[in-house]
């Protein structure tokens, strides 16, 4: 083997997909075990349940398959004037935890306060926003009602039971829709440390919020990091998008892959058929924003008049689009087109076994590590279904009711 030229491309900079292909071929367990301490990124790749399941399909149960436990969701008041009562069915005002069938936590209904100690009632009426890596971000109700534009967010560590308040964010810059997109980047998404934490925080995370500025209709990004060293508090960025955009389209929660948060936006052109991704990546405090128009073939464009819905997600760690069309979900992937561009093509179609009056199903919440999605039929709001994207199977989620605000459903997964 020749000497390594330090200036040449080296393995550490290869994309994770490619490193995974290599790790897939490391022949023995001991070598792989050693790989897991080479660096943080490799540790994450080797300990990724999808990876382990692929390497040892027969032993997946003993190796700890990623486990979807259930969903946190905010319960709507029946009408806005009625004060919600604490009842036997709902002894807590905090978000409801709805377990999935076979949840290791058992079938009973719980509440966020079953996970997080909250004697002060701070989590009462809290709205789940985004969850990732054992952390759940919720919006809490400010004590004084005159501060409508102030966003009070609280980070809950579902494993340690601790909650930490983020500094309040004055979002009066944004239009009436306020914050429309959320992203949570956790320790596992960061590059190899060390990352010392700011005072008052016990978890490494970054929160990104996005909305439209009232004044110039441009996208506006807010960022908060619990890492020490950056000046504490919210940082605010004008996204200066090249075209007029609305969104995030369909899904408010960003897809996070390799430390980059991605949202889908719809272009405000004549027929609203253009989709864009916004990639936000943060490295050592520096933020970079990239807008990319999604390229489709005219004939198979997914958001023609019949296809109202397109979701960005990751399937098997690759970026994909989920499109709902009547009772099927189509999965779109990026492939090279003859002119050298990456184009989106439909690559898989999953038929749901139920179909209500031809009404399209609505994806509500994508479950990252389980390659599954929570879906609803709006004409039958009493039930929610879990759709497995690998096998196409559909499972009814017991304990779901119409009083849940599906817009706030976020999944809770553990490894």
């Amino acid at each position: 083997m020749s000497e390594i030229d330090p200036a040449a491309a080296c393995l550490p900079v290869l994309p994770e997909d490619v490193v995974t292909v290599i790790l897939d071929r490391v022949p023995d367990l001991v070598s792989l075990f050693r790989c897991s301490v080479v660096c943080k990124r490799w540790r994450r790749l080797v300990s990724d349940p999808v990876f382990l399941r692929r390497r040892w399909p027969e032993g997946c149960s003993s190796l700890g398959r990623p486990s979807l436990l259930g969903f946190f969701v905010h319960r709507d008041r029946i009408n806005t004037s009625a004060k919600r009562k604490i009842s036997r069915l709902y002894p807590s005002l905090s978000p409801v935890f709805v377990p999935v069938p076979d949840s290791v936590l058992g079938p009973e209904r719980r509440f966020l306060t079953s996970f997080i100690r909250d004697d002060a009632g701070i989590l009462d009426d809290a709205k789940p926003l985004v969850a990732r890596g054992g952390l759940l971000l919720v919006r809490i109700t400010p004590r004084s009602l005159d501060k409508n534009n102030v966003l009070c967010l609280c980070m809950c560590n579902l494993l340690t039971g601790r909650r930490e308040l983020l500094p309040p964010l004055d979002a009066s810059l944004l239009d009436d829709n306020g914050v429309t997109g959320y992203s949570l980047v956790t320790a596992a998404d960061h590059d190899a440390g060390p990352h010392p934490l700011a005072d008052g925080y016990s978890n490494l995370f970054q929160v990104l919020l996005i909305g439209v500025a009232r004044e110039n209709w441009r996208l506006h990004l807010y960022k908060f990091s619990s890492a020490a060293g950056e000046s504490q508090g919210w940082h605010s960025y004008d996204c200066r998008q090249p075209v007029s955009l609305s969104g995030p389209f369909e899904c408010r929660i960003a897809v996070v892959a390799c430390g980059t948060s991605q949202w889908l936006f719809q272009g405000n052109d004549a027929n609203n058929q253009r989709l864009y991704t916004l990639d936000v990546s943060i490295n050592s405090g520096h933020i970079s924003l990239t807008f990319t128009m999604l390229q489709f073939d005219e004939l198979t464009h997914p958001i023609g008049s019949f296809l109202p819905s397109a979701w960005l997600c990751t399937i098997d760690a690759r970026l994909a689009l989920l499109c709902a069309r009547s009772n099927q979900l189509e999965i779109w992937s990026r492939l090279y087109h003859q002119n050298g561009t990456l184009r989106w093509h439909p690559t898989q179609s999953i038929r749901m076994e139920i179909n209500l009056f031809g009404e399209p199903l609505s994806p509500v919440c994508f479950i990252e590590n389980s390659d599954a999605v929570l879906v609803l039929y709006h004409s039958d709001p009493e039930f929610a279904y879990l759709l497995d994207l690998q096998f196409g199977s559909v499972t009814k989620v017991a304990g779901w009711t119409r009083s849940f605000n599906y817009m706030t459903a976020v999944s809770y997964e553990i490894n």
Partner: protein
Amino acid sequence: MAAPESGDGNNGAARMVTLISSDNTRFEVEAAAASLSQTLQLTILDGGGGGGDGIPLPNVDSATLSKVLEYCIKHAPAAANGGAPNATAVDRAELERFDNEFVNIDQSVLYSLIMAAHNLEIEGLQSLVAKKVADMIKGKSPMEIRRTLGFPDPTPEEQAEMNAHMLEYGWAYE
């Protein structure tokens, strides 16, 4: 640009396509060979890459592309036979010898190759290079792996973590 000889001597009837590397070098190659790339296959089936217009590959430079095509040309006949169930043992041994020789190259070239194979979705090539790198990993300590593969020196934290790991899981280092 150096056009590869048509592999099966099919009276030149084999369809040719042109690929253009990121540094604008044109490569003319049999469609069957280029079709080892899943991404190119779609384009070629659509009738792309023929005649005057080539298929631009903005992510692959000419040095890498010529290496990629060397692999594709060698493997195209076997691939056309559907994994070559009727290939002779001699043919298979020859391919194996070629593969072993093929990856006996500088590490930086290996990395460019695997990136190209990944982008072009040439499964056999990606697998071959990945196997080569995986073999370089095999049997080494974490520190040796880092050195072999060109990682920067570990941070004190990473070093401490590796030491702790070796202490705790001594069996993996015997």
